């Protein structure tokens, strides 16, 4: 997994609550057997018109957000299905950070497995970021996972909470399976004491 230490990037605001994983990656694209290449299908039904062209109304298609790598979202982002195709699509499209007041549990967890940092901030802080993104053209944020800070060039400085274990895994780009297998003897011991042969 790619490590995540610091990231500075363009912010795209997505002012919608309850964005579900069916919108992030519609089901017709779940038939692929690879982990890669999902970015082209990200937000497909919102992003493209019936004729296949870009929907100019959709946030990601606006020229000022071209190249955005930080998604600013509203509450309960990523609700619904457990499909990891959702973070795969966001990551493949180019996102490294998602900021929202709340995330659905499975989606939140899936992000960390793919080198992407989901950040929970309180509603007021998220509202402030939306206001700043509207005020400053080409609004950029810098995220430092080591120091747990978010800063901009206009005096903003925030700290955020993240579970220590997940933070360390992301900083080091650690593979969960390899980590767990360091304790394989404990698994074997568990199986032996529980009659699992």
């Amino acid at each position, binding site marked *: 997994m790619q490590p995540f230490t610091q990231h500075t990037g363009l912010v795209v605001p997505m*002012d919608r609550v309850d964005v579900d994983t069916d919108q992030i990656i519609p089901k017709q694209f779940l*038939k692929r057997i690879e982990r890669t290449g999902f970015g082209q299908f990200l937000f497909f039904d919102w992003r493209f018109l019936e004729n296949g062209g870009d929907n100019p109304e959709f946030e990601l298609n606006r020229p000022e957000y071209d190249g955005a790598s930080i998604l600013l979202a509203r509450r309960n982002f990523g609700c619904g299905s457990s499909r*990891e195709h959702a973070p795969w699509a966001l990551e493949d499209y180019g996102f490294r950070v998602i900021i929202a007041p709340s*995330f659905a549990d499975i989606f939140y967890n899936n992000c960390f497995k793919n080198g992407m940092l989901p950040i929970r901030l309180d509603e007021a802080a998220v509202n402030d970021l939306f206001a700043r993104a509207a005020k400053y053209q080409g609004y950029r944020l810098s995220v430092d996972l080591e120091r747990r800070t978010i800063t901009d060039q206009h005096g903003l400085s925030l700290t955020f909470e993240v579970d220590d274990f997940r933070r360390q895994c992301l900083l080091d780009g650690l593979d969960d*399976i390899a980590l767990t297998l360091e304790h394989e003897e404990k698994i074997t011991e568990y*199986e032996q004491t529980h009659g699992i042969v």
Partner: protein
Amino acid sequence: MRYNDVNIKITKPRPVVAPYIAESKATLARPTVAALWSENIAMTTKQTPRTMLDKIWDEHVVRYEPGQQTILYIDLQLVHEVTSPQAFEGLRISGRRVRRPERTVATVDHNVPTTDRSLPIADPVSKQQIDVLRENCRQFGVKLYDIDDPQQGVVHVISPELGLTQPGMTIVCGDSHTATHGAFGSLAFGIGTSEVEHVLATQTLLQQKPKTLEIRIDGRLAPGVSAKDMILYIIGKISTSGGTGYCIEYTGSAIRSLSMEQRMTMCNMSIEAGARAGMIAPDETTFQYLKGRQFAPKGKDFDAAVDRWKRLPTDQGAGYDRVERFAAADIRPQVTWGTNPGQVVDVGGKVPYPADYDDPAQQKAVAKALQYMGLTGGEPINSIAVDRVFIGSCTNGRIEDLRAAADVVRGRRVADSVDAMVVPGSGPVKRQAEAEGLDKIFTEAGFQWREPGCSMCLAMNPDVLEPGQRCASTSNRNFEGRQGKGGRTHLVSPAMAAAAAVEGHFVDVSQ
């Protein structure tokens, strides 16, 4: 009080044997999945009152270090074709094996056609995904209930049916509706594909213990009101994120009086309230359901298992992190009007207006949902006409669901303007329904009678809504495009869906 008077004695730890593995092996070489317990359940219960989640969690801790995630043992992993290919590929790339193939069970459900199974699968991409699962199961030694297997069906229907799902187990699947299995008093939740690979490789997961939310529903449901109405009502009250971070335990007299199938419907939609897991304490209803099932313990082993299972329910005095209470008598048949399951109203009610909400974000979301749904607000629910009806899914594709729908349909005709289909949740559900003559009731009324699978719950197979079509659906999600791009989904119970099919619009089946 039934659970709290179980006399829990401190017993000496003794080696735990696998009481019914041998029998399972006799019936089928694999899988041999058993919820195996050590005696420390009984020991620690004496000390501190614990919730059912505490007991199952404690029993499955392989390694706990403060500041790190717990390594939790997983008793059973269910696998389907959509969320597993990349996990098996990951194993191949890193040269790992499936640690416990006998605790891994696969089926094909999301992509399979529900029409004539003797024909080849028309969609080459769907076919490839199914073929890849076959090859992965063959290569890694995993039992697969394939498309031609008499037990094939929706993964959350077949596992309980086979008796694989048992109280006290930890169960995962790359599917958010894994919460279904919590109906048996197990800890069951959906995971992403990276975690599927983690469980395949290690039979464990790295987890943080969720908080506990007791949802207590007391009293009696009115006739015509089902578990589906109860869970939709609850989601309407606590919202689609109300359970985020929690494991829900459903309690109260209204829950105790539910059949196992209705309990599964409740737990199934826990994720629609944001909770990864929902659970219901096992009781006589649970034990009777399990008795005699293929992978359930047999004879004396069954009795011993029941003794263990009876220790599972939450102890008197154990506290939940949060409690919500509801009265069954308040619950009417429910119909969703919007694009998430929390946007729901009584069948006698009206579609709301954005201005009915205080929160500006909510107003905006409601306006957007109404626009997508082709509604303006203020419409009586009963006036909304439907084009399609779908009865099936892991939420409502079991035999009791089909019986409830057939009771409404019997002797009547599907409205001319409606295209209606019934998709049984599994092969056994289909055969049982046919033995009872339900298929005739449906087909004579003008319903299509299909082969088992997920079908139009998520429309990965050819069963898809056309843009603008409005559907009464017994499934679990009414997200935009869920049943087909531009399709408009109203979630309802099987009886409500059946009534909408014959009337051509929503009606109150409790009247």
